[in-house]
């Protein structure tokens, strides 16, 4: 099964790197959507079916934490897992995000294998749920 994936990051380079890494890692992708902040992501989610979201934390307009909170309040987190991809390594911050319903956390820089592993785990967990 190929996934519709949304990548949310204010860096166009990071979005391109995640897209390339998904390809290298052999993750089956149907549609790859991109957004540069949380608000753009919510707009895209309102119009397209998405199986999985990769999101940064620090972004202008609406950051990744607000995005997760909005997705949670709108019930979107029940069906669409969110994986945070960030430079931040604070265990406190990661715990906060997991408590808010985030499915996984990947710290930059990351290897293709790590991305593949997380996608497999998250999607398996989603399908089991």
């Amino acid at each position, binding site marked *: 099964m190929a996934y519709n994936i949304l990548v949310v990051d204010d*860096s166009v380079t*990071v979005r*391109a*790197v995640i897209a390339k890494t998904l390809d290298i890692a052999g993750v089956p992708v149907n549609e790859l959507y991109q957004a540069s902040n949380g608000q753009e992501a919510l707009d895209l989610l309102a119009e397209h079916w998405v199986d999985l979201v990769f999101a940064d934390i620090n972004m*202008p307009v609406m950051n990744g934490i607000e995005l997760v909170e909005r997705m949670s309040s709108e019930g979107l987190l029940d069906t669409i897992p969110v994986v945070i991809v960030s*430079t*931040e*390594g604070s265990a406190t911050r990661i715990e906060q995000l997991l408590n808010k319903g985030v499915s996984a956390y990947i710290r*930059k*820089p990351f290897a293709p294998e790590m991305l593949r592993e997380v996608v497999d785990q998250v999607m398996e967990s989603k399908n089991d749920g």
Partner: protein
Amino acid sequence: MDEETREKIDEIFCDVIEKMAFMFGESVPEDELPPAGSEFVRTEMTFSGATEGSIVMAVPAQMCAEVAANVLGVDIDSDLAESRSCDALKELLNVTCGNILTALAGEEPVFDLHPPTLSEINEEDWNNFLSDENTHAYNVDENPVLLKITMKS
């Protein structure tokens, strides 16, 4: 800055640039830096939260496209490498900053990282940055790179 902290910063920067851009860096004394050219770029970002501070990186202008090409896995002469060169350098600083803060402050404190900015600097600015005693100097695939992190105690 004590020697242990300097070594930690050097180790993290070299690790990040290797993993992100597949480029190899080593800490060198300033008089052993590769030739720098005459056009330079400086990227800077601030952070707040557990501690406030800033991190600055300066590189020769032509290195930006090389970083972008390596990060994106495209040819250095491609339009993509050229168009993404500034963004790639800012992201390199962003990732370096996050990793250094965790290494220096530990995994409990929470930091807010603010978006990096980028500007062109001249040779005089480069030399002033180089002569700062807190600046770290690296040879990255025969490119000189300067890095400085400032944290309020």
